[in-house]
């Protein structure tokens, strides 16, 4: 029964795509529509699995020896559903975007394929299928990143992305192979059945490898460096898909392998996850708060949010292993909820940034501004996204971060010193992350959309076409739901938690109703009522401001106060760089910005300054310290190899033959 539904994602994409491009009558509409349809199917399927019974599908002929094997359980279902939801919004948006940007046929074809790949990853029921879907996802995303390959930065980012993602794939490959070898089977179910007779050594190895491999896909430090390069350079709908859906796959891998199959591990597992998460969160948000490229800022904020999610997962693991399943359930809920809400507001953010990019051709916040009057809808959309990303009340990210904090402060501290020390520090990390996140988002929204335009391009901005607005509206609606009515998601979360018994999922999770209460610990909040009360309070304040208006002269519209001068030029405004300058100075030791100021004096007198040029370069410090040496080593080694390349075909054939012989001898 499920065959028809379940096989559909990949098949039509392969069929329809090229034909659409060939006929090239409105390829964008076809490609976008297809993406949206795939998304809808994924969403429906995911929900049906979450609330119905798990679905299986075997296609023996598609793959030798093992065949393709798809098992969809609530855990996979929620990821499929999230990916699908993102894909719907992005698909609708992509119609207008691809028209405006005149996409070539190749990305048009690849977009649905990419979505199909992402939908297959969580549905994979066996190691082989998983790896296959993973590679499909990685390859298609790489193609999409390279779709504007005429620009040099894009090519550079593409190479970087290719190397990193394959590196991560190697880790995952080894880990899963070890797992299936030890688990005595290819299917996850078989592995789960006899995972318990797995000794600690391989467990630890698998844990570390998966954390590294999946972490690189989720953009965790230190393997994050591809993310702030690739996400901004990709076309915006693709950035949205990658940043809101693809990174989730890394988290999915960690949950599936480490939390569902291997957990509960020793204490240091949870601690490792927490450290990875905290470092990634703080580092990502720090980079975001000094970034001046709108899309790069959003990409760094993705690293930040993935870090928070990982931190929550680590907390769940640590709490379970230290015997506090109830609190662990809260942490786990926080992780899942934050993952979903991040998908919502990050989609919206990248789509809004995309329509700014399409309207002005600008990503540089220092040149933007004044869009609130020119692109009102887009401005509102980005505002909703920024509010969600900053984790303030009325924002999509608030409830999940609140849950995370609750789980951290209610950890049992008289049991294990490790817990008692880890929790305060991670509260500090989370708090610093939220604080800097607020700063970053205020900068992005305020400098980018408010005030007056800082360049002619921003001056001439026009509102985005209907389909783009429609796509954004969907994502915005999701954000609003997360912000004020998370109660709608509580059944989903309950069902998903139920399949993660090893990390406290089976104990009673938080009851998300109109008033969100936590079992076991006294703590409650109600985002919906809070929003309502705030609106009432604001109306009350406005009413207060009407007091004594009988005596008032009529409202006047006057020019800005220019300290006595006649007018202010837009260049007098604060830019993103100057806005972030205090933060940059505070965190100088970590950010290590490369700034230099050149003052040219007049020839007549050194007291008269002719020109001052200030240049600051924000390079990713981790990249500089950690990657550059590696890259250099690899290049030098490649130089050695290069000697062997003489260009003679015979020699190459000889190499091949020699290699074959060696293989035969070894394999004998």
């Amino acid at each position, binding site marked *: 029964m499920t065959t028809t539904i379940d096989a559909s994602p990949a098949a039509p994409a392969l069929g329809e795509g090229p034909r659409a491009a060939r006929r090239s009558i409105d390829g964008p509409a076809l490609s976008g529509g297809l993406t949206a349809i795939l998304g809808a199917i994924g969403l429906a399927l995911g929900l049906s699995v979450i609330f119905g019974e798990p679905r299986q599908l075997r296609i023996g002929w598609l793959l030798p020896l093992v065949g393709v094997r798809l098992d969809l359980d609530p855990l996979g279902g929620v990821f499929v559903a999230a990916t699908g939801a993102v894909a719907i919004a992005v698909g609708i948006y992509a119609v207008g975007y691809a028209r405006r940007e005149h996409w070539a046929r190749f990305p048009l074809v690849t977009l649905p394929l990419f979505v199909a790949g992402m939908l297959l990853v969580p549905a994979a029921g066996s190691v082989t299928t998983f790896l296959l879907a993973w590679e499909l996802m990685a390859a298609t995303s790489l193609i999409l990143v390279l779709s504007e390959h005429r620009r040099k930065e894009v090519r550079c980012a593409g190479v970087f992305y290719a190397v990193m993602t394959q590196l991560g794939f190697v880790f995952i490959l080894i880990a899963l192979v070890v797992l299936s070898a030890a688990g005595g089977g290819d299917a996850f179910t078989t592995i789960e059945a006899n995972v318990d007779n797995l000794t600690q050594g391989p467990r630890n190895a698998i844990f570390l490898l998966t954390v590294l491999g999946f972490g690189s896909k989720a953009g965790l430090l230190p393997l994050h460096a591809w993310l702030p390069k690739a996400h901004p350079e990709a076309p915006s709908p693709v950035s949205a898909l990658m940043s809101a859906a693809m990174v989730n796959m890394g988290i999915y891998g960690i949950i599936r392998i480490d939390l569902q199959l291997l957990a509960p591990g020793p204490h240091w597992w949870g601690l490792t996850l927490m450290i990875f998460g905290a470092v990634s969160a703080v580092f990502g948000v720090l980079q975001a708060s000094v970034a001046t490229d709108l899309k790069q800022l959003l990409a760094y904020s993705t690293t930040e949010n993935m870090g928070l999610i990982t931190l929550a997962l680590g907390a769940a693991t640590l709490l379970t292993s230290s015997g506090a399943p109830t609190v662990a359930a809260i942490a786990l809920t926080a992780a899942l909820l934050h993952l979903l809400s991040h998908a919502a507001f990050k989609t919206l953010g990248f789509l809004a940034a995309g329509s700014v990019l399409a309207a002005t051709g600008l990503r540089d916040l220092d040149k933007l501004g004044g869009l609130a009057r020119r692109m009102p809808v887009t401005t509102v959309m980005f505002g909703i996204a920024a509010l969600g990303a900053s984790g303030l009340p009325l924002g999509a990210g608030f409830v999940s971060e609140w849950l995370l904090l609750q789980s951290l402060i209610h950890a049992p501290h008289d049991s294990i010193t490790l817990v008692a020390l880890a929790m305060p520090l991670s509260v500090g990390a989370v708090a610093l992350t939220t604080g800097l996140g607020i700063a970053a988002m205020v900068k992005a929204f305020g400098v980018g959309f408010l005030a007056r335009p800082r360049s002619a391009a921003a001056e001439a901005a026009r509102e985005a076409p209907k389909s783009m607005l429609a796509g954004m509206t969907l994502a915005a609606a999701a954000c609003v739901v997360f912000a004020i009515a998370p109660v709608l998601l509580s059944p989903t979360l309950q069902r998903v938690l139920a399949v993660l018994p090893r990390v406290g999922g089976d104990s009673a999770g938080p009851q998300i109703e109109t008033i969100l209460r936590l079992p076991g610990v006294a703590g409650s909040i109600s985002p919906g009522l809070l929003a309502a009360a705030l609106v009432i309070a604001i109306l009350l304040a406005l009413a207060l401001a009407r007091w004594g208006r009988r005596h008032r*002269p009529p409202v006047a519209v*006057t020019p800005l*106060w220019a300290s*006595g*001068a*006649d007018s202010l030029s837009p260049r007098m405004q604060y830019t993103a760089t100057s806005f972030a300058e205090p933060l940059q100075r505070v965190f100088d030791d970590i950010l290590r910005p490369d700034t230099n100021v050149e003052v040219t004096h007049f020839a007549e007198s050194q007291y008269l300054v002719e020109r001052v040029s200030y240049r600051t370069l924000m390079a990713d410090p981790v990249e500089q310290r950690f990657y550059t040496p590696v890259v250099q080593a690899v290049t030098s080694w490649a130089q050695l190899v290069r000697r062997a390349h003489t260009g003679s075909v015979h020699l190459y054939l000889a190499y091949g033959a020699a290699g074959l012989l060696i293989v035969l001898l070894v394999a004998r």
Partner: protein
Amino acid sequence: MSWIGKIGRVGRIVEPAPDAPEAAIVPPTGVTGSLQLRHVDCGSCNGCELEITSAFSPVYDAERFGARLVASPRHADALLATGVVTHNMRQPLLNTLKAIPEPRIVIAVGDCAVNGGVFTKGYGVVGTVGDVVPVDVEIPGCPPTPQQIITALRSVTGR
């Protein structure tokens, strides 16, 4: 903490307030005892500035009558203009007045502001403050004493 002792020894150094003068104008907003001032130096010799400063010093303490100097004309009710209006300060003076929300009043401080004083017909001089903007209250004197300034302010604040 030798300062505490200092504070104790000094005590209150503010001079006793003479009884309130008759109101020069009705308080514009109908609220007495609150007057925010934005000071503009239109080309003064800074004598008046010194006296204004000391009018707000602990000795004379104009704040006890509800007068306060503010940073932005948007926050102000009155323009405190000193000195003759020079060519360069004419437009800024007008801009500042425009930036003050209605109802607003203009107080000209010192002989220069009132009648040009010693700078009348100087080559860089446009004229008195009254020539540029409508003046409501005039404080003569070169420079006026803090007591005079405070009396004038009180006649505006009505306190």
